[in-house]
């Protein structure tokens, strides 16, 4: 399945925070959404997940307008993991992950074998099966992020959206999550991730969507969009590509004023 934003605008509190943005999330592709703070990355993700209403344009799930689908139906296909991974209550990890099955369950039915299989598979996949009986509010940040990702995978979605999943993680756990997203894409999911780390984008993403002040400033394959010139325009920093040992370029960043002084 694919999820598409077709010229969507989003208004919050009388202000337009996303302006006719278009983006297609294709199966098998890891799409990174990048842009400065407040540029509209999270808004785009929430609109794609159907959580925030759009005031113009349409979000389409396999060419069907998202607006016409029930919350349950959307939840079976589109998973969204918010940036805030705080867990306040002492649910066990297994209880928390099985909440991901909500959209597949009837109000009167209890847990089925299919539910259990999906939960087990999600726990395995995110490498948190050993934590299943632990209280989720006592986990570390990296474990929490993986548990919440497992919860959204328990719904067996086709599209997975993550809002800055690596923001509060140390480097090892951040790489874990990015690897996992990469694998999900390889397995045919359409993966959309808001990210700040441009070098992670270079290494992991297939497609990048660059957002600047509520508008899509560029979308396409990573090497085409992630040019020093575009980075300078949107982020206001000088990016110098450096060839890594494996031939993949990564960037070294400098503030523009310092860079100008040197030249």
């Amino acid at each position, binding site marked *: 399945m694919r999820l598409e934003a077709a010229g969507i605008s989003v208004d919050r509190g009388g202000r337009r925070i996303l302006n006719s943005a278009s983006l297609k999330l294709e199966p098998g592709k890891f799409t990174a959404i990048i842009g400065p703070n407040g540029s509209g990355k999270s808004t785009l993700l929430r609109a794609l997940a159907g959580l925030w209403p759009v005031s113009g344009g349409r979000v389409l799930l396999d060419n069907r307008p998202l607006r016409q689908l*029930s919350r*349950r139906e959307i939840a079976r296909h589109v998973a*969204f993991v*918010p940036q805030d991974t705080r*867990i306040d209550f*002492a649910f*066990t990890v297994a*209880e928390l992950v099985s*909440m991901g099955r909500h959209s597949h369950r009837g*109000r009167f039915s209890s847990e089925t074998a299919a539910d259990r299989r999906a939960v087990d598979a999600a726990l395995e996949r995110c490498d948190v099966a050993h934590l299943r009986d632990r209280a989720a509010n006592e986990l570390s940040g990296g474990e929490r992020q993986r548990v919440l990702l497992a919860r959204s995978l328990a719904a067996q979605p086709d599209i997975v959206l993550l809002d800055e999943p690596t923001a509060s993680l140390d480097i090892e756990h951040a790489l874990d999550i990015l690897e996992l997203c990469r694998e999900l894409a390889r397995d045919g999911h359409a993966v959309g991730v808001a990210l700040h780390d441009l070098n992670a984008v270079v290494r992991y993403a297939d497609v990048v969507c660059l957002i600047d002040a509520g508008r899509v400033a560029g979308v396409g394959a990573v090497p085409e969009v992630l040019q020093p010139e575009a980075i300078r325009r949107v982020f206001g920093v000088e990016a110098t590509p450096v060839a890594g040992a494996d031939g993949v370029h990564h960037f070294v960043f400098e503030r523009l004023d310092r860079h100008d002084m040197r030249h």
Partner: protein
Amino acid sequence: MTSRARLRLGLFYSLLLPALVVAAVVAVGIGSTPLPWQTILRVCAVKLLPHQWLAAIGFDFSSVTATDQLVVWIIRIPRVLVAAVVGAGLATSGAIMQGLFRNPLAEPGLMGIGPGAALGGVLAFVTGWGAKSVLPVPLLSMAGALAALVLVYAMSTRGGVTPMSTLLLAGVASGSFVSAVTSLLLTLNVANWQIAQEVIFWMMGGLDARTWTHFWLCAPFVGLGLCSGLLSARDLDLLMQGEETAASLGVDVESAKRVLAVTVAILTGSAVAVAGMVGFVGLLVPHAVRLLLGPSHRVVLPASAVGGALFLIVCDLVARTIHPPTEIRLGVITALCGGPFFIVLLLRHYREASL
């Protein structure tokens, strides 16, 4: 559910259900005329079983006097049953409120429901309708609970969306306003000591002179509220994760919140209707249950109902026996027993957590 959690749950019910039965029998037995459990059993048999069956096993009908029947069946059993139902209703509605507001200190009063019910009841007293039959007080207080909810909900809803923070503020503000109206009515009627005393007693909560009518007024609504709560238990678990997360996992957030709010109004309204204002049950019982059994509402809601029933039967027993012949008001006892117990639970919890 882990095997340990299942064991805890089994232990909980295997202790509480027998305790509930024992407490009920003891409560029926104790009073100004003490009655042995055999008498209680005999009266129940005469009232509940077909008389041919009893005759067939050689039951001695003369062993059950008219006085026994009056005391057991007309006076004490309805009172104990009303206590159980009111306790179950208040504890369940408290549990729902705490899940809905994601706050362990939330209680039914917060959406203006408790004060609304109180005002309804007081209106029945000051207009004199309450003195004419048993129906006006409960009916008006149920109406008050629902009216308060509708008002508060309508005030805090914009474009089909009801933010919980706005609901909370509107609820607290309306609650204070409604309570002030109640106090005003009381002040204006304080010259008529008869009415003022009734109002004051009712506002302190109590189960004196409760009849089968009260039971039947309350029990179906509490039953309805319990069912509706149980059917929404998973929604409630998800809402506790935050509304955005709940929505992304497939909950229709606004409709789930409406269903749960109406459930709280039905439970609280019907409980206040027959027992007056009884505080602390909705706060204490669900909290204790969560400490013992974890936060999942499919466990917490029924366990709170059982715990609330037991707690209120015991409190009512204490209320009417501790200082005879005067009855202490039930709301006073729940707060007196509940407060310290609550503090002990909290301290133990934090000590365990810090170890």
